[in-house]
């Protein structure tokens, strides 16, 4: 084994990419490794360790135990929570991608036609993004409020539509949570897709125009294929961000009514900070991470590989 691989390695050309690799890469990587280790790896390892204990928030004297794992994975709530998480994530991600793409297309279109106000539009959309999630939840709670002054319901009443139980009806609450998340997260998709749209070669559209392509054909044959990479990267990022979202929900619905909007991140948070079950929370966090990684890996498989379109 070693005998065959050694000469092959010797015959291999010097490392690809720019320039020769430094003779000893370790010193160069050390600072990065240090920070990644300190802020990412260490907490993950610690959570993994805690998952195999009976630690609680009040009593950090932890002994090895598999009880937490059994209790969490066997818990009756987990099924509901996972289903909520799936609905919430899918809804939010598709909503953000579609709306972000739509606004980005609009902005680019407007800029091409020298329309005024495109910068303002972009800034407005971006403003939603810098609002903290908690504040966003509070804002939407006021908008969705079912009291007489609730912004959306009073508008609906003006146009003669009966009020909607946005937050108190378990069937609507998830939709409301998704709307609030999409509203905030759209900016992120918009900016990413806007940049990608701007980098598409204009002459492709000119060639298509000469070929009598309709707007739909342009979108289908040029824009979407050219955006594929950006859309997928965007999807990976917002899937992970959305899976980890609980700040909007906590201030909007608190996970209710009942468990109607309790997603995995919120469930983990509640387990630790309401039930003081540190070990259980760690189990859920590890589960969340595993789901994130799996989904990211699946989406990444569709990424265009380098050297191939």
């Amino acid at each position: 084994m070693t005998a065959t691989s050694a000469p092959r390695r010797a015959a291999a050309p010097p490392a690809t990419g720019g320039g020769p690799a430094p003779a000893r890469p370790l010193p160069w990587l050390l600072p990065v490794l240090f920070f990644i280790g300190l802020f990412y790896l260490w907490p993950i390892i610690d959570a993994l360790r805690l998952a195999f204990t009976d630690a609680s928030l009040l009593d950090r004297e932890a002994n090895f135990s598999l009880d937490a794992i059994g209790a969490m994975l066997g818990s009756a709530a987990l099924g509901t929570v996972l289903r909520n998480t799936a609905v919430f994530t899918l809804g939010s991600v598709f909503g953000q991608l579609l709306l972000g793409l739509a606004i980005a297309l609009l902005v680019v279109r407007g800029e091409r036609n020298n329309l005024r106000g495109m910068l303002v539009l972009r800034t407005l959309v971006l403003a939603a993004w810098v609002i903290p999630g908690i504040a966003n939840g509070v804002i939407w709670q006021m908008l969705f409020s079912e009291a007489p002054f609730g912004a959306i319901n009073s508008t609906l009443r003006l146009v003669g539509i009966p009020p909607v139980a946005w937050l108190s009806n378990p069937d609507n609450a998830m939709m409301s949570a998704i709307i609030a998340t999409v509203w905030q997260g759209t900016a992120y998709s918009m900016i990413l897709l806007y940049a990608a749209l701007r980098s598409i070669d204009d002459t492709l559209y000119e060639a298509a125009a000469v070929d009598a392509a309709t707007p739909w054909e342009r979108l289908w044959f040029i824009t979407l294929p050219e955006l594929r990479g950006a859309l997928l990267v965007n999807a990976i990022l917002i899937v992970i961000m959305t899976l980890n979202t609980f700040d909007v929900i906590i201030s909007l619905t608190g996970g209710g009514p009942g468990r109607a909007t309790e997603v995995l991140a919120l469930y983990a948070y509640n387990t630790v900070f309401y039930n003081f079950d540190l070990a259980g929370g760690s189990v859920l966090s590890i589960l969340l991470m595993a789901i994130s990684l799996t989904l990211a890996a699946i989406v990444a498989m569709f990424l265009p590989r380098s050297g191939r379109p």
Partner: protein
Amino acid sequence: MSELVLDGISKSFGDTEVVHGIDLTVAENEFVVLVGPSGCGKSTTLRMVAGLEAISSGELRIGGERVNDRSPGERDVAMVFQNYALYPHMSVAQNIAFGLRRRKLSRAERDAAVLEVAKLLEIEPLLDRRPRALSGGQRQRVAMGRAIIRDPQVFLFDEPLSNLDARLRLQMRLEIKRLHARKPVTTLYVTHDQTEAMTMADRVVVMNEGRIEQAGPPMEIYRNPRTRFVAEFIGAPAVNLFDARLTGGSDDGLWIELADGTRLSVPASRRAGCESYAGQPVVFGLRPEDIVIEAGDGPVAPVQMVETMGAETLAYLGFGGTEACARLTGDSVPSRGDQVHLRLGLERMILIDPTTDRVIGAA
């Protein structure tokens, strides 16, 4: 009938007009090359024909119909872009077939059409590839295939060869011409390369600063330029221009006096056009091939530099108070420092009025 007519076409970007009232008719199946220096408005003109740029004023007619207000897709023109603009996510075959999607063709008919075009352009083996996996010349052919298959009324090219290396450019130049001979289409071709213009065109249109300077068959433009700009722009190496003065009266003949005192007798055939300029300064122009080294009683000039190119030799001579380029054919190559006798083809000289920069005696 697919005549292309530009009738007083102008283009303004904001307050600046960059194309000033172009009048040009491209006859059916004619190959017209629009040539001019960078920034003179060639692309803008072509893009107005394609419909990619709005026409500020004037009328554009294709096949007798006014098309100013039609979108590019409704004008039945095909365009080959400088960077080819192939759809990167489609195969070569799909790229070529794209223009056919509106025609109600069966799959077999479409494939047959694509194959026919691919055969014409010799790109059959590439049909399944993506544009990224093609060389520049191959992309060029695909771009042409995409245009040809639509069988449009008018073909537009915007510097299609400028991204290719010199050898390939030569080859594609020939190939486009051959293709046009086999499958004639009304064609407007833009380039800044005067050689391309000369070699490819049925008719050359020289543009300068948003105006047509002169239009005509290549040899006409070359031999009888109307302005100093055209004389200098067309021809490589460029025409030799000397500051000179016309002297002499009607009895003693007419003479061209160069800055270094050389006196050249104006041949009888050319006298009529320029007699009225006697006593005035002129710019005297002579193409490099009209300067020949030959023993005789012609003027003597020192050879300052020699460039051998195989079939011909360029000799740079100290003549007329400046440096003149002579294009020599044949095997006797002078060497630097030689004093040589010149024979000048004065019947073909170009005389320019320096106050107007127009060629004296031109129509």
